[in-house]
């Protein structure tokens, strides 16, 4: 029972962070400069999550840093910049890692 309440509380806290601004809608007006800067949440957030994950644990989860992963990430990065397709970049990234592991790099 204690565990259910704990997860429920965690869920409410999570929902609160996500609902904060969207639920408020037009009752919140941010300064225009802030509103414009917020368009860069995507690149800032995804970079801040992705790069430490590739380099090794960041408190989100544990991943060990090694050369094959960094090379496979670079390959996936090139694919996404060139073809702008997540499926392609996932396939190329995973296959690069398997190949590099297989040849024993």
């Amino acid at each position, binding site marked *: 029972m204690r*565990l*259910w309440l*704990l*997860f*429920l*509380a*965690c*869920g409410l*806290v*999570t*929902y609160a*962070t*996500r*609902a*904060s*601004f*969207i*639920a408020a*809608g037009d009752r*919140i007006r941010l300064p225009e*400069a*802030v*509103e*414009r*800067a*917020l*368009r*860069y*949440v*995507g*690149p*800032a*957030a*995804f*970079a*801040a*999550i*992705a*790069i*430490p*994950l590739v380099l090794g*644990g*960041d*408190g*989100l*989860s544990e*991943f060990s840093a090694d050369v094959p*992963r960094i090379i*496979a990430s670079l390959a996936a990065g090139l694919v*996404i*910049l060139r073809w*702008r397709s*997540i499926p392609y*970049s*996932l396939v190329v*990234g*995973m296959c690069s*890692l*398997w190949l590099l*592991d297989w040849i024993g790099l």
Partner: protein
Amino acid sequence: MQDLSFDRRAALDGIRTIAPLAVPGLPFGMVLGFLIRDEGIDRLAGWSSSWMMLAGASQLAALNLITEGASALVIIMSVLLINSRHAMYSAALRPKFAEYPAWFRFAAPYLLIDQMFAVASSASELEGSSLRYRMWHYLGAGALIWTIWQVSVGLGIFLGDVVREEWSLEFAVPLLFIGLLGLSLSNRPSIVAAIVATIVAVAGREMPQGSGLLLAIVLGVAAGGLAETATKRVSE
């Protein structure tokens, strides 16, 4: 009053757009489920954390803290800190949701995980589309990724250790975020935002429970905004 009745095409488009972004969650969810099983956490309660929180990284942190015997307050505060980036997502999407009726503005954020933010903020088919289309696109995408998450955590709990470590499937998660990052780099200020956020995130990765991540996003966004202003001044 806007017509917001069910739009099948929009829902299918949403499902199609989110599908490749949802796939990397499968092995992650299964590993999370296996952790619940392996640590002897009540299975039904553990599985329920998936629909109550719908947040992989903070579910993982909460489970780890539970097995370490941390207090409820510590666990809840950690979840708050890890998920604080979602408030940034919420702030960024606020203008796109402001015209919707209150029920949708309160319901939609439940589904606002990283992939949903990526789709809602920048999927190309949403440009210039109607409120109705965008709403059902969001709900279609959310329904798919919600279902995949519940099923994958459930599979991990009830099947156990089927994701073999030597397959390195957990690497799909960093690859997903590299993909989302690549798609989000659309102009120079976005590159500046990404570089600043990367430097701060790497430098601050020892900071407690993802607070370095939040700082990185805030400073990255500020840098992006400043870079945009600077670029405009130069071109004027």
